[in-house]
């Protein structure tokens, strides 16, 4: 039913306010011991310099599926300014059609807006990646593809503020 969803947008922008320091938010995005704990639960690995490699390895939850490759996302660091800004390329490898759409561009902007409150903005430039765009927007959640960025960021906020991820 939702296969008719067609997003004509090529850039998606998501923003969430988190009661945590910019460093805590940066760590949660870039360190595997954190990325394992929310959203899709993959293990992020960054070589944090321009041109450095980036991968997300399948975490415990996704590894249960036999067809899932070890590396589920790959890309390259374009700009790293910890704990404020991270620009990178990003390609989904879990699905052949999405992998064929090639590299997209992902930016994380992390700003402390008041003492103890950090604003995280995710800008995903999805030109030429309409299939991936549906997944990142959460439009394929009923097909079991997870809730995309809105879900990931909601879960991240819950984890950093309460120490526990969302139920389910």
């Amino acid at each position, binding site marked *: 039913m939702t296969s008719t969803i067609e997003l004509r947008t*090529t*850039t998606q*922008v*998501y*923003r969430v306010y988190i009661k945590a320091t910019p460093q805590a938010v940066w760590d949660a995005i870039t360190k595997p011991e954190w990325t394992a704990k929310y959203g899709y639960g993959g293990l992020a690995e960054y070589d944090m310099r321009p041109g450095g490699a980036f991968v997300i390895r399948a975490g415990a939850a996704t590894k249960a599926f036999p067809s899932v490759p070890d590396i589920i996302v790959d890309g390259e660091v374009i700009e790293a300014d910890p704990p404020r800004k991270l620009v990178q390329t990003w390609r989904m490898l879990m699905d052949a059609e999405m992998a064929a759409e090639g590299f997209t561009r992902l930016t994380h902007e992390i700003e402390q807006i008041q003492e103890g409150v950090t604003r995280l903005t995710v800008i995903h430039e999805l030109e030429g990646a309409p299939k991936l765009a549906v997944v990142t927007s959460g439009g394929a959640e009923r097909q079991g593809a997870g809730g995309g*960025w*809105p879900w990931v960021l*909601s879960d991240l906020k819950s984890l950093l503020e309460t120490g526990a991820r*969302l139920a389910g």
Partner: protein
Amino acid sequence: MDDDDRVFKALADPTRRFLLDRLFLRDGRTLTELEAELAMSRFGVMKHLRVLESAGLVVTRRSGREKLHYLNPVPIRLIHDRWIDKFTERQVSALADLKSELEQQA
């Protein structure tokens, strides 16, 4: 007013829901584009966009000279994850309880 209050208040208006629907169909629009779809003054549309922005439902980004408006569904997701899920979970478990009770009686 807390964050959830701002979201509910922003959504409690048909013009603002219309604007979100337009952005859902095609994101990253300018004020001029959005204004063209409404029988309303530019100032009126700006006011509604400001309410949506302060609720976090719209995020603006500069692209050259243009200010683009993006739909940010995260605040709605937060309400969904914290509130809706909580209540639907309880309904589901209540139904499960009812089922086991009826089956025990049978």
